């Protein structure tokens, strides 16, 4: 009974229903290569969603992570090219740290000046994007210049299948990174006091202060973690698509926030889980993927994602009202 009432169960149910529906319209959906490609599309949005989940739980919102991701990615690759460095671990670390520092700027303004996170992150987002294009450069870095180590790393596969016609397809190992980070986030949220403090802050900031939580630590942790995840995802993304585009990720905030809200996180803070978020990400990616397969125009995809945000937010608001009633 308790299991049935959980948001995750409901979301999983809806997801399953949607999969059956899409599978009926388009039987190719259930083919292994399509499922593998779906899971591959989950990775970047999913990693970013973990950060957004953390921010939403704490009662904030973050629209700056796509800017941070693109800045961390482009700066790192520019740096690698300038230094002639070809590796994986250090660049990923560098991108993560860059994202973390950007996030710290968000945390500073949200904590110190008690500013509304939406305004802070809108501002830092514009600043970072503008700085990147104005100072660092506007040209794309293509496959011919991309560091090969990154591309090779992102090509790693867990399983590989050869089709009858000789072409191969596989499941990218990046999925493992995503699942690993998700597991880590789950453990942080559920089994550490800093994770619980995010829930407390999102539940009632005044009560959290009175209870004696160190809200400065909490807020910095939240925004730094969101920034770090974005930076990491940004660089991983360029490895996966063999391209570093300083104008990448425009409009991605909508997709990611839609996915997190779809996954049952409350836009008002205090509620949300990693499992729900992963389901939400999967659902969103699947819907977008199906729209592409059905040859729906990209402009109409926007309409769909926008509607998802509205409907999912309305549903979660309705749920929260019913709980407190």
């Amino acid at each position, binding site marked *: 009974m*308790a299991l049935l009432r959980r948001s995750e169960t409901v979301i999983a149910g809806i997801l399953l229903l949607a999969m059956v529906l899409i599978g009926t319209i388009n039987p190719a959906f259930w083919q292994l290569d399509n499922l593998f490609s779906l899971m591959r599309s989950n990775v970047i949005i999913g990693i970013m969603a973990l950060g957004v989940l953390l921010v939403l739980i704490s009662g904030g919102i973050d629209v700056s992570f796509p800017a941070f991701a693109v800045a961390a990615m482009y700066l790192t690759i520019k740096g690698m090219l300038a230094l002639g460095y070809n590796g994986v671990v250090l660049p990923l670390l560098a991108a993560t740290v860059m994202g973390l520092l950007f996030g710290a700027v968000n945390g500073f303004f949200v904590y110190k000046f008690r500013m509304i996170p939406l305004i802070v992150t809108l501002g830092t987002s514009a600043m970072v994007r503008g700085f990147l294009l104005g100072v660092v450069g506007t040209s794309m870095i293509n496959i011919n210049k991309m560091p090969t180590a990154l591309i090779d790393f992102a090509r790693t596969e867990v399983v590989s299948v050869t089709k009858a016609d000789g072409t191969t397809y596989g499941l990218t190992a990046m999925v493992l990174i995503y699942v690993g980070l998700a597991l880590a986030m789950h453990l942080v949220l*559920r*089994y*550490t*006091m*800093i*994770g*619980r403090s995010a*829930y*407390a802050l*999102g*539940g*009632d900031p*005044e*009560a*959290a202060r*009175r*209870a*004696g*939580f160190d809200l400065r630590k909490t807020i910095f942790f939240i925004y730094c973690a969101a920034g770090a995840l974005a930076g990491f995802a940004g660089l991983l993304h360029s490895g996966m698509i063999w391209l570093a585009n300083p104008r990448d990720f425009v409009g991605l905030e909508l997709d990611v926030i839609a996915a997190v809200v779809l996954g049952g996180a*409350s836009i008002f*803070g*205090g*509620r949300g889980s990693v499992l729900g978020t992963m389901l939400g990400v999967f659902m969103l990616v699947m819907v977008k993927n199906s729209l592409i397969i059905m040859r729906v125009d990209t402009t109409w995809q926007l309409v769909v994602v926008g509607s998802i945000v509205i409907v999912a937010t309305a549903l979660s608001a309705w749920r929260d009202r019913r*709980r*407190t009633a």
Partner: protein
Amino acid sequence: MSDGFIELRDIRKVFSGVVALDAMSLVIKPGEIHCLAGENGSGKSTVIKIMSGVYQPDGGEFLIDGKPVTGMTPIEAIAHGVQVIYQDFSLFGNLTVAENLAMNVHLGEKRRLMNWRRTRTIAREAVDRLGVELDLDAEVASLPTAGKQLVAIARALMSDARLIIMDEPTTALTRKEVETLFRIVRDIQARGIAILFVSHKMREMLEISERITVIRNGRKVAEGPTGDFDEALITRHMTGGDILNEPYVWTPPPGTQVPPRLEIRDLTVPGKCEGLNLAIRPGEIVGLSGLLGSGRTELALALFGMVPNHRGEILIDGKPARLRTTQEAIDAGIAYVPEDRLTEGLFLPQSIKRNMLATSYERLARNLVIDRSQAEEMTQGMVRAMQIATPTAEKPVMQLSGGNQQRVVLARWLLTDARVLILNGPTVGVDVGSKAEIHAKIRELAQHHGLAVLMISDDVLELVQNCNRIVLMHRGRFIDDLPAADVTEETVSDRLKTFT
């Protein structure tokens, strides 16, 4: 006398030139139930904050166990055994009961990891210590107010409390829940823990406390064993004067065929109330009471156009009215002052003027432009008529006391030329002095302006004193319709107790 656990001697506290406390003294003996009585704005909350270390006194002496204490922080206050249960309980609605209870222990131990099994053990102990039934896995937001209060009390008891301060603990509770709370309070006292009740509800103070201290304008004005006080005496101390209580008398206008101001025929709100019939004539004040969930609020909301799916007939001055939206209700001459004026009725950060005019802008802006001079005239007139204590109508409503806020809401509706006034808990959270003034205002409106008033309240005394008829509701139906002259507070309360 230094037999007190905590003692305040001539405490003074000044906020940017405004004296909040001046010569405030209070002695709390170990293990006693003490009441601090005072009107809103008398300095009660400042006293709480000094005792809990949130504020430092600017003068006077503060003693714990007979020893002077200076510069106490909130954490030190807790170490001394002082726990405050705030009106909003300071709980996390999104977390479970267990986590709420164990949170302070985890934080106190400066833990980094969350141990869920230990959380449950801690919570189980806390709940057992209080001797109540609470579902540890329930989300706090899903609990009723009384349940949240239990969680807050259980949490306060976990630390080795010697004094628990309860700030207006009975405000949102039903009579039955108040009785449960009192039983728990006596139980806590039996363990040698002192309780300080901060309240302005006199009957409850007299019922529960052993000693009373009355505060007015930041000073102690009276102190003594509860047996030395009665309601009239406390009121006199709290307000500095007597308040007259004459019953409201309404005589039907002779020999005329005036239709009722408000008449409802067979009104039904699906699932909430059924087949309600009632007529209120001009000048009548009809009281409506019943337990929470009796359907009384739904009736009020239906009359104010907020329940579009209601059935039955509603007539205003004999003419059928269609009330499917609030705008239709306002146009029909219905005014509604909601139960929780703070969240439903007022725009707190906005000025008195804007709040008053909120429902009149349509009338003020006949040619699309707001007639500023007329707006000014209307607000000034109302500030004077309602005797709102403010130098200017530009002051934000949140800076006013509860009584003055309620008057702003009333003023707003008077400006719409309302003919039917529905008041839901008109004086909840309002102190005695303002309460009497609001009552006088309501009577005047009914008597001299011919309004029909429907007054919904839990405060039976309020109804008996101010209504000419009292209607009792239970499970969505009207049970009794009693002339106020034939009843007393006791008979009505006893009748209500039979509804379960």
